[in-house]
């Protein structure tokens, strides 16, 4: 069945270092992937997305990498700041077939001073 999961539930990173959050997915039919950031008590906030015809996409301080061969994607955050503390979810969608957005388990990112 469909599943989107994350390798690590908690990640602690020194302020100023780069963070890498990983996600594995099992549904090869998925062709659109989204990273969300969720701060405590708030709804998920869109960070960046990538379609399956791409391997890499960059935003402001964030980069998403997609490896379709091993069904893996990652979110890289450059120069991590205290405001990056949150839970990060990857989500998947079969963009051309349905509108469902299925979330993975999430990784909590702790920023160490």
């Amino acid at each position: 069945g469909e599943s989107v999961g994350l390798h690590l539930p908690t990640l602690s990173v020194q302020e100023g270092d780069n963070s890498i959050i990983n996600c594995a997915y099992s549904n090869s039919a998925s062709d659109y992937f989204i990273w969300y950031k969720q701060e405590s008590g708030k709804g998920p906030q869109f960070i960046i997305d990538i379609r399956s015809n791409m391997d890499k996409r960059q935003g402001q301080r964030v980069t998403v990498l997609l490896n379709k061969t091993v069904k893996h994607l990652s979110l890289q955050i450059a120069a991590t700041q205290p405001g990056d503390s949150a839970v990060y979810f990857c989500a998947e969608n079969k963009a051309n077939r349905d509108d469902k957005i299925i979330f993975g388990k999430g990784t909590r990112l702790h920023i160490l001073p």
Partner: protein
Amino acid sequence: DAMVIQNPRYQVTQFGKPVTLSCSQTLNHNVMYWYQQKSSQAPKLLFHYYDKDFNNEADTPDNFQSRRPNTSFCFLDIRSPGLGDAAMYLCATSRGRGRTEAFFGQGTRLTVV
């Protein structure tokens, strides 16, 4: 300006007493979603609408119903809330059909007493 608005932010209901959560959007998006999120877990899709077409997830309990009277509004009805239904309920919207970046509201935290 808020684009997906959920009311109320906090809702307390009695065990077994029907409760309705509401969501409105100013984005004129085709798709509206309802997710349930329990503590330290990923959002779980309950159902979604594409326009007036309702799509229920197979594992969504019958206790959960939804209504979408127009493009802007969507309601989540819990007919007989149990203690296990205490959670954050998230509403989201997207344009759909391959343009599924979803925008989330701030959520309604439901407490069942």
